[in-house]
């Protein structure tokens, strides 16, 4: 996709203008829109960052994980625990969150990758649910009650702000940095090897690629970024419990974002998140909050509908669909 944009940009100055307009709009949202819109897009960026790190294993390597949210949850908890019990600065906290999640990812890879094909997805689900169940019953970290950060005065040092505006830029910044790092990884040796593994693991091996090694790398890098994202979640929401940070629906949402946007392009997960999350946020607020009556869960029903529609009608996702219709062949050297 990026290649497409670059090559097209050379040919069509209008595209540069459009890109700049989009960039400007994104940067301007907190100033122009109301807090509601700002919040929903901030959430979209959060999911985008999760979807990007998740797609490293899924779109690029062919392993559909429904346990990615476990790393997010661990990240959220680690930062919470550090801030709540040890007064650690959140900026440091999120880094440690990332590392903790990465370590968990490394440990999880060993058993998980022994499960083949569709069983892998099931195994990741079981893995993540086990973690959630453990946290639900673990009193020292709040069990089902959750943990709450006390109210603090606004400060950048403690990453505490009243409204969603600053967090908006913060998460956007995270997304951009993560995107840059992941893009370089994906266009390089690691990304290439992952794709070869996805295409044909046997051929990959005969070419000298050690599949387990690269799958594990993808899992760890994905986990690392998911953990950091989780850490930032804690700083914004200040309350976490196993249900909001470790529930499998999170992975489903991430997967929906990825599939809608297009798994096989780099920016697909981002585009998907920007579409799905604000819509879902809107639906949820219109039909009542988490404890609101009969329409609780409507957004999940909508996820199901979107998912099945996209998969049956537009399996390559929004971005893939657009790319197919572009005048110029976007495929330079198999890397999408």
């Amino acid at each position: 996709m990026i290649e497409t944009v670059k090559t097209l940009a050379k040919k069509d100055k209008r595209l540069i203008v459009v890109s700049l307009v989009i960039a400007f709009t994104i940067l301007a949202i907190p100033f122009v829109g109301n807090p509601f819109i700002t919040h929903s897009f901030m959430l979209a960026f959060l999911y985008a960052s999760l979807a990007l790190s998740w797609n490293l294993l899924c779109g690029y390597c062919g392993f559909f994980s429904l346990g990615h949210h476990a790393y997010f949850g661990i990240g959220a908890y680690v930062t919470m625990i550090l801030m709540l019990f040890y007064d650690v600065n959140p900026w440091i906290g999120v880094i440690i969150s990332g590392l903790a999640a990465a370590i968990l990812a490394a440990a999880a890879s060993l058993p998980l990758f022994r499960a083949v094909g569709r069983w892998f997805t099931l195994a990741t689900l079981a893995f993540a649910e086990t973690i959630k169940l453990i946290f639900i019953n673990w009193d020292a970290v709040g069990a089902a009650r959750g943990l709450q950060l006390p109210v603090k005065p606004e400060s950048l040092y403690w990453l505490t702000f009243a409204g969603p505006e600053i967090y908006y830029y913060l998460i956007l910044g995270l997304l951009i940095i993560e995107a840059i790092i992941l893009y370089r990884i994906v266009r390089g040796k690691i990304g290439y090897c992952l794709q070869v593994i996805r295409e044909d693991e046997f051929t990959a091996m005969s070419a000298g690629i050690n599949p387990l090694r690269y799958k594990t790398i993808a899992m760890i890098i994905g986990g690392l970024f998911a953990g950091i994202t989780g850490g930032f979640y804690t700083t914004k929401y200040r309350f976490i419990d196993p249900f909001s940070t470790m529930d499998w629906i999170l992975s489903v949402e991430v997967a929906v974002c990825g599939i809608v946007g297009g798994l096989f392009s780099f920016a697909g997960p981002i585009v998907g998140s920007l579409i799905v999350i604000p819509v879902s946020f809107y639906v949820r607020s219109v039909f009542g909050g988490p404890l609101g009556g009969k329409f609780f869960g409507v957004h999940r029903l909508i996820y199901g509908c979107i998912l099945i529609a996209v998969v049956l009608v537009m399996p390559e996702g929004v971005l893939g669909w657009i790319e197919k219709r572009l005048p110029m062949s976007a495929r330079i050297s198999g890397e999408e």
Partner: protein
Amino acid sequence: MALLSINGLVKRFGGLVAVNDVSFKVGKGELLGLIGPNGAGKTTLFDLVCHFLKPDEGTVIFKNRDITNKPPYVSAVMGIGRTFQIVRPLLNLTVLDNALAGAIVKAGGIEEARNKGLEALKLVGLNGKSSLKAGSLNIAEMKKLELARAVASDPELLLLDEILAGLNASEIDESLKLLNKIHESDVTIIMIEHVMRAVMKLSQRIIVLQEGRVIADGSPKEIANDKMVIKAYLGERYLR
């Protein structure tokens, strides 16, 4: 010192003994033909050398190191390149991306691998199609691509499994020239082949396998006159 030394390899599949106590040495720079009737165990032998299969008995020594029980992805790094009887190109990736697969592990980065891939494609004559999808190639081109991938890894030993199968006469001649060229750049080659004239013409030495055993090992001329070989291929009646 032999580049490759195979000692007493045995491989059983249930009751069937596919490879039955095979031993031979291959010196650096040789061009060895491996022939034999279908089912003689030739491909199985390759699988054992490249550790896609584990031998029940015996050892494989390459460059003085015992590689018998290594995992499958090690052989490419160690300097063994291989093509397969049934080609398996990565259909959705481009021709270049297929070729550079061979180079990626040894290369420092993707750029270097890409360059090596292009070189390999040039060698086999496919560089004009480098940005096409591999799925659009015909069978002869796919075989060349497979060869390019093996060559891109800078192998010291090249194992070719029926690389001439399915090609017409002119394509075979072209391939023979190519193989000669590769051989001249100091690559040791073992080729499994059924195309007799190619094997006879190209090889310096031929090993004949039948029912998992080595029944002959010598120059093409010796092999052509070997009684056991004639019996194996054509049957008893042809023995004078």
